């Protein structure tokens, strides 16, 4: 049985936990860095990236998150979580966790009145996936080892680089657990590989 954590400093934590449980795995809300040792994979949820960053720094989470990535455990960032994962942020000098080889622009679709729903084709997940974009970021540039999973109007909105998965939208807000299930498979594979 694998256990997957959801960083629970702020944001849509409950929805990710329900989605993981719907995929048949144990889900844990992570509020303290020590709790990261107890999980095989981690979801960085949607929320406000600036607020999460402030709490990450305050509770000394940053090194623990970088270590989590270093040992090869899978991480999945949605919206604000994608911003936390990116190695480069448009208009900012420093990234947050900075582990996924992508450049991300914040609020790149506009303000809340421009937030939207769209059906997306996501490689290896679905031909038509209901995606909810809320003041969403997008991936401006992706490194050579990054696999682009989905685009919306020519903008990259979902991608994978090895152990890292990221998307601009909020799979946790709908009943379609396809993308969560894809991440659960990543975690199972990573755990099986480490056991061998």
């Amino acid at each position: 049985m694998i256990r997957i954590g959801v960083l629970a400093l702020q944001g849509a934590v409950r929805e990710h936990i329900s989605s993981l449980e719907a995929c048949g795995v144990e889900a844990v809300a992570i509020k303290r860095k020590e709790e990261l040792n107890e999980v095989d994979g981690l979801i960085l949820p949607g929320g406000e990236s600036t607020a999460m960053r402030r709490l990450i720094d305050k509770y000394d989470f940053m090194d623990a998150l970088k270590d989590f990535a270093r040992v090869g455990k899978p991480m999945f960032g949605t919206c604000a979580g994608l911003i936390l994962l990116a190695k480069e942020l448009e208009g900012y000098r420093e990234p947050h966790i900075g582990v996924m080889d992508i450049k991300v622009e914040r609020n790149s679709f506009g303000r809340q009145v421009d937030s939207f729903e769209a059906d997306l084709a996501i490689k290896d997940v679905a031909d038509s996936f209901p995606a909810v974009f809320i003041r969403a970021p997008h991936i401006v540039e992706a490194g050579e080892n990054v696999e682009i999973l989905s685009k919306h109007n020519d903008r990259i909105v979902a991608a994978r680089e090895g152990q890292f998965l990221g998307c601009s939208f909020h799979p946790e807000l709908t009943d379609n657990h396809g993308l969560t299930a894809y991440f659960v498979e990543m975690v199972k594979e990573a755990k099986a590989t480490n056991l061998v």
Partner: protein
Amino acid sequence: MITGTDLVKRGMAEMQKGGVIMDVVNAEQAKIAEEAGAVAVMALERVPSDIRAAGGVARMADPRIVEAVMGAVTIPVMAKGRIGHIVEARILEAMGVDYIDESEVLTPADEEYHLNKREYTVPFVCGCRDLGEAARRIGEGASMLRTKGEPGTGNIVEAVRHIRKVNAQVRKVVAMNEDELMTEAKLLGAPYEILLEIKRLGKLPVVNFAAGGVATPADAALMMQLGADGVFVGSGIFKSENPAKFARAIVEATTHFQDYKLIAELSKDLGTPMKGIEISSLAPEARMQDRGW
């Protein structure tokens, strides 16, 4: 691709959960709030305690203030319009404000009808004192709720009353048989369909924040413990002695609302919080929570 759907409007509030939304009156305060870890700011001309002190008619803020705040921060910006004031709401929507608070803190423009919030692309947050009021606002299209509390008093007692009441009534609806719900809808003055949705979900269909009297980190943690999804802090922060420190402490107490040692630590040396008002000393016409229905 469609904008302004329930999922998009309610989803925006879901992303604010576990966070603190702070009242600000200028760009400088907005930056302090963002730096402290606020998930959004509410742009106002005056904070509620000053509105109380000033008296007269309180209206939507000068668009220049809202604009300045929107230009100063990257987190969402909310703004207040008067209850039932269609044009103030449309102006704020046209300016690109991320969320509108149809608020009893301002003087109501309409004493009979709230806004038909379903017609707007921008989402709305509304105040409530009980489930009937909460369900009526959801019925009109509110995408987020907050307790009314008693704004600008620094006294948490009314917010506690409101969150307890709403949550107790939600529990009752969830536990009821479906064939009892129509009578409950009649008694509460609530739309039947919304009660059905609450029963099906086992909770309110939109997030419910605490507001109206949060003055200390312990107040914020109390509201979280009583089941609030997050906290609005109005006059509490910028009426305190050291706003930046106070704001950070409220954010941390909201995240770690059950870590009492931590809340003890971050409550130290905060300086004087805002001076509170005893609710019973308020004249009936000074009670903001009784505005709207």
